[in-house]
């Protein structure tokens, strides 16, 4: 009988983490400016030494590395959120954006752009903060409306989330249509998804935030296994169903909100990675969740690197890369492995 053991879990996680580190290092070499190995080693061993603060170091540390790390955080967050929501909604089509949080974050950020609030509040830029506030409000709204007699109704939540997302998306379209030409560019650029805009303070906060969220969700991974069976069965197998639903919804939504606030709407990560991984490692969330996080990080870091190097100096939006590369590959795997979703064979 195939079963998940601690040993298998540790080995997988360690291998993937190593892969992630290697990816980060690899990606930091890629780019239009030349950075050689000697410089890199020196920089990493003596980051604070002033003598090495030449152009290459600056590029690496201040431009590329934050970008790569942000890609990792956002990729991991979206992949994990996708896994969690698919379990919560018991629907293989669910992705992190389905419940409207992303639209709320987008709206918040766009309002900030519109109002020209390109300032910093303390060390933190205001656009992501507004984005995050927007996401938070959306979460509260959807959560509140989905409660029936103190219990969360998953079907209601799905409908409310989708409708709320649609309304918010319409609002965004409206704003875009009445905004001045200078603002429009900023808005569209933000919406397309961009990983290059953050600096370390924001990065650190988002990382801390997302990692905490992922760890909390990881603790409830077994609960997600049970939730996928249906609420009644899950309860009959000992799960505190209401608590599990709350944690899943709030956790997934918050990390999505955070991700979207700093990077815009990057698609195809949250729906692709969960399914790709399920085909390979199965549906046990204790393994699927952390692997999704690490894989999502690797995936997005690579996609972003391709985006900024393929047609340098121009930048292909990362969302395009994720769709173009991920989509066909997914269909190929689907056909090869005869993946079964629900009761149908695809």
């Amino acid at each position: 009988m195939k079963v998940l053991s601690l040993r298998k879990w540790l080995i997988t996680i360690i291998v993937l983490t190593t892969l992630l580190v290697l990816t980060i290092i690899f990606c930091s070499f890629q780019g239009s400016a030349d950075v050689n190995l000697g410089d890199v080693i020196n920089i990493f061993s003596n980051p604070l030494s002033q003598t090495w603060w030449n152009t290459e170091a600056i590029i690496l540390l201040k431009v590329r590395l934050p970008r790569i790390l942000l890609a990792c955080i956002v990729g991991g967050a979206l992949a994990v959120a996708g896994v969690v929501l698919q379990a919560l909604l018991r629907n293989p089509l669910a992705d992190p954006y389905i419940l409207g949080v992303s639209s709320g974050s987008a709206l918040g950020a766009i309002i900030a752009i519109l109002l020209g609030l390109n300032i910093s509040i303390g060390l933190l830029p205001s656009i992501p903060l507004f984005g995050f506030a927007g996401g938070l409000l959306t979460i509260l709204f959807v959560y509140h409306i989905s409660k029936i007699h103190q219990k969360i109704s998953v079907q209601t939540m799905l409908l409310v989330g989708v409708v709320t997302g649609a309304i918010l998306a319409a609002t965004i379209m409206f704003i875009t249509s009445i905004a001045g030409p200078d603002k429009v560019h900023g808005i569209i650029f933000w919406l397309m998804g961009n990983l290059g805009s953050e600096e370390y303070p924001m990065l650190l906060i988002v990382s801390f935030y997302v990692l905490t969220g992922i760890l909390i969700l990881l603790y409830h991974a077994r609960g997600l296994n049970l939730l996928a069976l249906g609420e009644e069965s899950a309860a009959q197998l000992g799960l505190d169903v209401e608590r599990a639903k709350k944690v899943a919804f709030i956790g997934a939504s918050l990390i999505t909100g955070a991700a979207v606030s700093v990077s815009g709407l990057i698609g195809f990560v949250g729906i692709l990675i969960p399914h790709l991984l399920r085909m390979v490692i199965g549906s046990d969330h204790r393994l699927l969740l952390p692997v999704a996080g690490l894989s999502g990080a690797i995936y997005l870091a690579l996609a972003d690197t391709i985006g900024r190097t393929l047609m340098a100096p121009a930048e292909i939006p990362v969302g395009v890369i994720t769709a173009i590369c991920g989509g066909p590959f997914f269909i190929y795997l689907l056909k090869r492995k005869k993946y079964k979703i629900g009761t149908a064979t695809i």
Partner: protein
Amino acid sequence: MLRKSPTSVGNPVGPSVTISRETCLSGVKMDSIYEVENLRFKYDESWVLDGISFRVKEGEILGIIGPNGSGKTTILRILSRVVIPQEGEVRVRGKNLLELRQKEIAQTIGVVPQDAFFPFPITVGEVVLMGRSPWLSGFGFESEADLQIASQAMALTNTLNLSDRLIFELSGGERQRAIIARALAQRPQVMLLDEPTAYLDIGHQIEIYDLVKKLNAENRLTLIIVSHDLNLASEYCDRLILLYEGKIYRMGKPKEVITEENLSRVYQSSVLVEENPVTGAPRVTLLSKLMSGKYREKSMRIHLISGGGSGADLMRKLIIEGYKVTCGVLNIGDADELACNSLGIEVVKEEPFSPISAESFSRNKTTIEKADIVIVERTKFGKGNIRNLEVLFEFPEKPIILLENDNFDYAGGKATQVYEELKSRGAAILGNHSEIIEYLEEVTEVGREKIDSGLYGRWKR
């Protein structure tokens, strides 16, 4: 009452009773697993359950039957605390269900739903292992002991060879057994099954019920089964609860609960309850509603003369049409006599293999006296039963229907003589059962005189 995961495997699937018995409250009947008192429950407006009380004894198989909407599945959901009743109390091993934590409930009660749903590809082994969830905590991985328990559960349900297959790929029966294995892996003290054989063919149905019986006998597992299948329920359950309009209509052994009276009232249908010749358990046959409409209408009494199995078919048809039927004289053990017994028909009996005595002859006379009409089936008549025909001479005014008969005289010509005599006196001669039924209907409608005058409708001579 939270029990730690057993580190030794011990008894394959028996519940870990020792700990819970020690920690049970004193003064509680140790042999009751469940005590349900005055349960009232509603989903929206009307009470689905309206005052239900019962006890479930340890080690018994209890069946819950009743019409759709009578609250059967609701009871199971209340017993596993998926829903909470507005009124009433449920105690498991003496402790109030509401006071237990979700995990404790899952360690005590295993539920087998009607049709489990799996949105993602998952193997049978993984499904069964989920049954160990109530015994795991936090992020934990399953231990060796857990794996062994799951394997044993699969061995008991004959699903061990399926453990690496995807649950989608299994047939209905295999999937149901896998779900039962999952419930068994919980090492529960009591198992609740909701229509476990609803989607299964008869082979699989028997498989599941035999498994259930085995688990009960060998592992002392208490079982509560909700079922629509009255025959299976009567076969395999020790006790039955018949639900009707939210209340317990009858509770007791299958023979006490499954009766024509109870079932026809509760299911608003005509049923026939006989004894299963192989097992002795009550066996239910459904009678069409179309016919049962007439069931209450007819008051005509028909006396049927038959024997040797010739009358069973017509008996049934007359009963379905709603007539009151009597028979006589029949020897005990004769196929027609057995048919009368299971149909509940009044019959004048004679000793096995004996000719008709004076005593039974006179009883037969009394019976025929009360009949409105006599029908003589295509029976063979010999010395033993010729008096069944001869008795008709005592009733010159009684309408008689003879079925066309030949090669029936084994009484040295006497039977043919009687037949000719009856015909000359005006007995109606019909060819088959449909004609008989039609004739009887018309007699009821337009009266005997018209028919007998030979001038009415198709009976014109």
